C-alpha cells in the first residue's frame, strides 16, 4: 500500500517538472515576442503619437500606415533623425512633404539602428485593431456563484445516483435472501419517516434550515447599500486601461486634486483636450467616443480648432464610489500624507477598461486599514514631537493609524 502511494507522488512530481519545463519554454517564447513588440510599440507611442497615427488620417504629420513600403528605410532613418538636414540637402521628397504640412518641421529624434529596427518592425506589423470592448455589466462574482451552484448540483446528482445504486444493491441482496423487495421511493420514504420520527433529528434539521435562512437574511440586510463591483455604463467609454495602463499616464495628471483636496475630482474636459486636441482617433472606438468630448467643449477635430460661441455641455459621468454624506473622506490625507497608492482602494484601475468599485467601502473596511497601516512619521516635522513620545509609549510596536486617533468617531463623522 505504502509503495503505491509513493509511486503516485513520484509520478506527480515528474509530471510537474515536465509541466514546469513546458511552461517555461512557452513563457520564454511569449516574453521574447512581447519584448520585441513592446520596444517598437513603446518607441512609437512615446515619440510619434503626438503627431502621427498608425492609420491614414493626417494629424500634424501624415498617417503612417504602410510607410515602410512607401519610403526607403534609409531615407526614413535620415528623415527621422534630422529632417531639416534632409530638406536642406535638396531632397525632393523631403521638400514636398515639408511644403504639404505647412512647413512645420519634424522634431529630430536620433534613434539607434536597433531602435529603428524595432520601430519599423512595429510599423510593418501594426497590432490588429481590437473590436470595441463591450460594456460588461455582468458581475464576475456572480459567475463564480453560478459555477459553485453547478458543483453542488453535480454532487446532488451523484448522491441521488448513489442512493439508487445502493437501493438496487440492497434489493438484489434481499431478493437473493428471498425477502420482500421495496421500490426506491419506498425505501427513501421509510427512511425519511424513520429519521423524522426522532425529535432530536427534527430539531437539528429545523435548526439547520433556520440558520440557513437567517444567514441569507443577514447577508441580504448587510448588503444593503453596499455596491462592491458596481460597474455602471459611462457616457463616454473611457478606458483606464489604455490611458493609465498602456500609455502609463500618471493618475495625478487627470485626477489633479487628489493630492490637494478631499475630492479626487473627475477631470474637466479641458484636461482631455490637452492630448485629444491632436489625438483625434482612439485605438478602440475610433472617433465616436472622442467626438463626445468635442461635443462637450465645442471642438472641430477636422479643422483642429475650437468653435466660436459654442454652448458647452458638461459630461455627466456616473459616480462609482459613493460614500454616504455622513462620512468625511479626504483624498489628500491618504494620497499625499499617507502616501497610499490609488490602487490600494480602487484596485488595478490601470487594467480596467470599465471601472468598477473594487472594495466595499464600508466602515469596517476603513477601520481595518486604519488598524493595520503604519503611520509614516519619519521626515515630517508635523509628527516629530508626537513620534518621540509615541516611540516610548509603544516601544517596538508599529504605530498604526488607530494609535493616533484614527478610529475616533469625530475624525470622520461631523
Amino acid at each position: 500500500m505504502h509503495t503505491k502511494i509513493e509511486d503516485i507522488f513520484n509520478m506527480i512530481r515528474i509530471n510537474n517538472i515536465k509541466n514546469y519545463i513546458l511552461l517555461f519554454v512557452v513563457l520564454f517564447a511569449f516574453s521574447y515576442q512581447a519584448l520585441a513588440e513592446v520596444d517598437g510599440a513603446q518607441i512609437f507611442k512615446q515619440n510619434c503619437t503626438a503627431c502621427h497615427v498608425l492609420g491614414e488620417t493626417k494629424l500634424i504629420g501624415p498617417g503612417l500606415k504602410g510607410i515602410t513600403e512607401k519610403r526607403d528605410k534609409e531615407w526614413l532613418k535620415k528623415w527621422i533623425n534630422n529632417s531639416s538636414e534632409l530638406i536642406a540637402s535638396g531632397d525632393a521628397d523631403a521638400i514636398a512633404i515639408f511644403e504639404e504640412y505647412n512647413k512645420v518641421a519634424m522634431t529630430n529624434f536620433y534613434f539607434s539602428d536597433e531602435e529603428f529596427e524595432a520601430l519599423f518592425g512595429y510599423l510593418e506589423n501594426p497590432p490588429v485593431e481590437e473590436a470595441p470592448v463591450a460594456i460588461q455589466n455582468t458581475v464576475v462574482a456572480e459567475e463564480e456563484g453560478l459555477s459553485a451552484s453547478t458543483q453542488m448540483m453535480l454532487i446532488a446528482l451523484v448522491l441521488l445516483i448513489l442512493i439508487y445504486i445502493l437501493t438496487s444493491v440492497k434489493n438484489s441482496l434481499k431478493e437473493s435472501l428471498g425477502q420482500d423487495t421495496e421500490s426506491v421511493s419506498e425505501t427513501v420514504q421509510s427512511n425519511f419517516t424513520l429519521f423524522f420520527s426522532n425529535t432530536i433529528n427534527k430539531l437539528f434539521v429545523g435548526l439547520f434550515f433556520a440558520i440557513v435562512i437567517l444567514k441569507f437574511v443577514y447577508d441580504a440586510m448587510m448588503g444593503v447599500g453596499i455596491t462592491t463591483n458596481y460597474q455602471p455604463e459611462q457616457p463616454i467609454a473611457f478606458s483606464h486601461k489604455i490611458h493609465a495602463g498602456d500609455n502609463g499616464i500618471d493618475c495625478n495628471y487627470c485626477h489633479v486634486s487628489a493630492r490637494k483636496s478631499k475630492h479626487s475630482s473627475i477631470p474637466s474636459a479641458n484636461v482631455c483636450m490637452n492630448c485629444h486636441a491632436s489625438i483625434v482617433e482612439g485605438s478602440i472606438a475610433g472617433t465616436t467616443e472622442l467626438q463626445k468630448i468635442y461635443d462637450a467643449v465645442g471642438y472641430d477635430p477636422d479643422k483642429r480648432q475650437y468653435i466660436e460661441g459654442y454652448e458647452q455641455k458638461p459630461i455627466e459621468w456616473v459616480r462609482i464610489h459613493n460614500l454616504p454624506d455622513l462620512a468625511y473622506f479626504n483624498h489628500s490625507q491618504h494620497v499625499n500624507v499617507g502616501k497610499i497608492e490609488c490602487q490600494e482602494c480602487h484596485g488595478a484601475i490601470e487594467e480596467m477598461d470599465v471601472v468598477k468599485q473594487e472594495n466595499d467601502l464600508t466602515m469596517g473596511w476603513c477601520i481595518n486599514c486604519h488598524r493595520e497601516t503604519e503611520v509614516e512619521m519619519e521626515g515630517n516635522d508635523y509628527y516629530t514631537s508626537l513620534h518621540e513620545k509615541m516611540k516610548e509609549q509603544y516601544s517596538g510596536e508599529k504605530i498604526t493609524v488607530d494609535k493616533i486617533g484614527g478610529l475616533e468617531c469625530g475624525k470622520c463623522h461631523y
Partner: protein
Amino acid sequence: MTKAKKYWKGLAELNNDPIVDKLKQNEFVEEIPVDKFLGDSDISSTSTSRRDFLKFLGFSTAAATLAACETPVNKAIPYVIKPEEVIPGVANFYATTMYDGHDYASVLVKTREGRPIKIEPNKTGTNARVQASVLSLYDSTRLKNPMKSGIESDWNTVDADITAELEKISTDGGNIAFLTSTILSPSTKQLIADFSSKYKNVRHVQMDTVSSHGTLEANKTSFGVRALPMYRFDKAAVIVSFGADFIGNWGHPNNEKDYALGRNPNDGKMSKHYQVESTLSLTGSNADERIQIKPSEQAGLLSNLLNALNGAAADNRIAKMAADLSKNAGNSIVVCGSNDTKIQILVNAINDKLGNYENTISLSAPSYLNQGNDTDVAQLIADMNAGNIAALITYNVNPSYSLQNAAGYNSGLEKVSLSISTSLYNDESASKMMYSCPDNHYLESWGDAMPTHGEYTFMQPTISPLFNGRQFQESIMKWMGGSDYHTYLQNYYSFADWNQSLHDGYFTSNDRKVNPASFSAIIPSFDLSKSEALEFEMTEKISMGDGSQSNNPWLQELPDPLSRACWDNYLTMSASTAGDLGITNWNISNGALNGSMVNITVNGTTLNNVPVMIQPGQANGTVALAVGYGRTAAGKCGNDIGFNAFSLGNGDATIEVIGGEYEFAAVQLHHTMMGRDIVKETTLADFIVDPTSGNHKTLYATHDGPKTGDKVSLWDEFDHATGHFWNMSIDLTLCTGCAACVISCHAENNVPVVGKEEVRKSRDMHWLRIDRYFSSEMTKELSAEEKISAITMYAEMEEPSGNPETVFQPVMCQHCNHAPCETVCPVAATSHGSEGQNHMAYNRCVGTRYCANNCPYKVRRFNWFQYSENDKFDFNMNDDYGKMVLNPDVVVRSRGVIEKCSMCIQQIQSIKLDAKKAGRTVRDEDAQTACSSACSTNAIVFGDVNDDTHQIQGLKKDTRSYALLEHLNTDPSVFYQTKIRNKA
C-alpha cells in the same frame, strides 16, 4: 381499524335538522351589516377580497422595501473648462468690502466651488450682521428682474425708456435727484459727478437710516470738517459715552477691537469706562460704571461736565467721572450718540478742553462712514412735494420705510415724473417707483470704499450675479451711454497697485490728510433739568440694525444680547415704570415669556398692540423701541414682525395699556445667577493686589488634607500629554456680548433656523449661546448681615436691580474630559477624542436625549424635526438658493438626533492636514474655530495646549482661568477667564 364514533352537539344535529346544515355553512346567523359601518354600499360590489387586500399590502411593502434598498445612481459632473483657481473641495478666499448702506466692514470671503459660504474679518472686525450678510446674498425673494410700473420687464426696455426720459428732462431743464445712502465709494461719487455734467441740474442727497447729521454739522461748525472723528479707544484711559453705543452700532467697526485692546487687566492697566444712557445698550452693559438718565437730562449733564472741567462744581452723578477726565486730559474720550448739533458742539468743546484731539480723537484722518444730511433730505421732500423734482433715482435706501416723514416722501413721490430705484429688494420704496432696477449684492459687485481718510478698501465679485441684476454703478453708466464699471474703477485707481490692493482688500495712502481748523464755536449751555414726561427713544438691535437685512432668518433668530428675545421688537421699560403702569411680564408653565401690550403715541404717530418687555437697566420714565422691524415688504421671513420705530422718532410718549398678552420668544428664563459663581468676577483694584482674586478654587476635605476638585477625581484620566490637546479660552473681561460668534457658528456649522414658535418651546438650535446675567441688589453677604431668611434672600436674588451690572458668558459644548454625556449614551454616539474634544456621531445617535439631560451646561440640541427641506420650516434650508450657503464639509443633521458644538472639528482636521502636507506643526494663527475667528476682541482664543507656541498654553495657566461649574469636576477643554471691572 378503529370504529369511528359519532359525536353531536345537540339533538337537532343528530336528527339532521336542516337549520343545522344552514348554520354549518354560515358562521353568523344574521347577515353582518358591513355596508353600514363602512358607509359605502359599493364596497360589497367590488371583487377585491380581504385576502387580495393583504396580498396587495404585502406586495407593495416588499416592493417599497426593495426600491428603498436600491442605490441611487449619482452623477458626477465636472467643469467643462475648469477655472484655474478652483480646486473642487478646497476653499478660496477673496478680500472684499461689505457695505449695505448701514454696515461697513473689510472682509475675507470664503468660497467653495465658486459659492461664498462664510465671511471672515480682514481689515476690520465683523459684527453679527456682517457675518450674516452672506445668507442675504442667497435670498430668493430678492428682486430678480427690472420692473416697469410694477410689471416685470427687461433691461433693454428699461434702459431705453429711462435714457429717453432722462434726456427729455435734461432738455426741459428739470431737476434730477439722487437719494442714496452714504456713498463710501469715491469712484461712485465721481460717476455721479459725471452724470451731473451730462444731464445738468443733478443733486445728490445722502441719507443715513440712523442719522449722524448732528455730529457732522457740529464738526463742520467747530472744525470746518464735515466728517466723523476717528476714535482711538485703545489709547484712552478714560472713556465717557453719553448714549453712544460704540461697541454695538455706533461709529467705526473697529471700535470694539480697539476698546478691548485698552482693557487688558493683566498688565494692570485698564481703561475706565463710564456710560451715561437711558436705554441699556451693549456698550452700557460693558461699562465699568453706568449712570441712568432720561434723554432730556443729557444736554444739562454735558453742560455741567464742561463746567466741572472748567472748575465748577459737578453734579453728584458725574463728579467722579469729571475728576477722572481731568486727571486724564489728553488721554480720554467723550462721545455722545445724540443727533443734536448743539449737544455735539458741547461734546466737541469738552474734548477740546481735555486736549483729546489728535491724541485719542482724530479729525485729520476722519471717518466718512456717515455722511447723511437731514436738512438736504427734508429739502428734497419739500421740493418733491412742490413738484420741483422731475426725476428721482434712489440707491441703497428705503425711505418709505426708514424716514420718520415717510408719508411726506410718499406723497412727494407721486409728483415725480420719473422715479427709479436701484435696490436688492422690491421693498416698501422700490414697489412705489416707476422703475425698480435690481442692484447686485456686494458679493456680486465691483466697488471701492473710503471709510476713513486715505484708506481705501475694495469690493470684488465672488460669484456671478445670481439673478438678472446689475449693480447701481453699471446702471448709471448705462444711462449715460457707457458701460463697464470694472474698467472705470481700475482707471480711477491708476495711482494704486491694483492687483496688490485687490488681493489685500485695501491700501492706505498717507500723502493726503485733512487739516481741521482749531476748535471755534459758540458753546451752547444747558440747564440741569429733567422732563417729567415719559420719554421715548429709538434704539438699534445688534441683530437687526436698520432692518435692511430683515429677511435674514439667521439675524431674526439671533437672540438680543440684552433681552435674550428674538423674532421681535418690543417696547423696553424699567420694572418700576411698568409697575406704575400696571404692566407685567410673566413666564407660562413651559417657561416661555409672555407680556402685556400697549398703544404708544409719539410725535403724533400711534403704534397699536406693542408688547412691553421689562428690561433691567432701562431708566425709569423712559421707553425704547428698536428700529429695523415692522417691515411690510422685506420678504417671507422679515415681513410683519414687530413695529416700525422709525415712524415714531424720539420724543415724549403717551402710553395706553390695553388688554391681551403677547408671546415672546426669549431664550433665557433667569436674569440673575442666584448667588452662584457661574461667572466669576472681581475688580481691577483687587486683582492687582491678588491675581487669584475672584477665582479661589474650592477645596474639598480628604484624608490627605484639603484638595482641589481635580485631585479627588473618581474618573480615569485620558492621556492628553501626547499629540494635540485642543482647548478654548473665553475671556469674560473682553467679551462684549456682540454675538458675531453666534452667527459665525451658524454659518460654519449649518445650524438650522427653527422659527419663533419653536424658540418659545426652548427648542432653539444655537450651538453657541451667550448667557447674560444681571446683578441683583440682594447678595449672600447682605442677607447674612441683615439676617434675611434664605427664602426671602433667594426670592430677592431673582430680581435684577434697576441699574444692574451685566455679564456676558458665551457657552458652547465645554468638551468635558470627564463628560457626563458620554457615560449615559446607550449607543456610544457621543465619545471622547484623544485631542480633547467630545465627539458626536449623528449617524449613530438614536435620539434618547439622555446626554442632553445629563449635561450640566445644557449645550446639547435635539432635532425635533427635519429642519431642512421642510415647508413647515420655510427658512434658508428649504430654499434652493438658501441651501447654497451650507458648508459642504459639515453634515446637515436629520430629525431625531442630538447635535452640539464640535469645536469646529472640520477646521481642526483641515489645519492639521495642511500642517502634515507642509511638514510643519500647526501654527497658532491657523488654529481658529468659527467663534474665535469672528471675535473682534480676541475674547475667544483657541489652540493646542501642548504646543509651546500657542497663546492658549499661557491662558490655561493664567490665574484668572477657571472652568464652568468647577465643582462638578467635568474637567472641560473650554475654560473661562475671570471678569474684571475697573472699579474700586
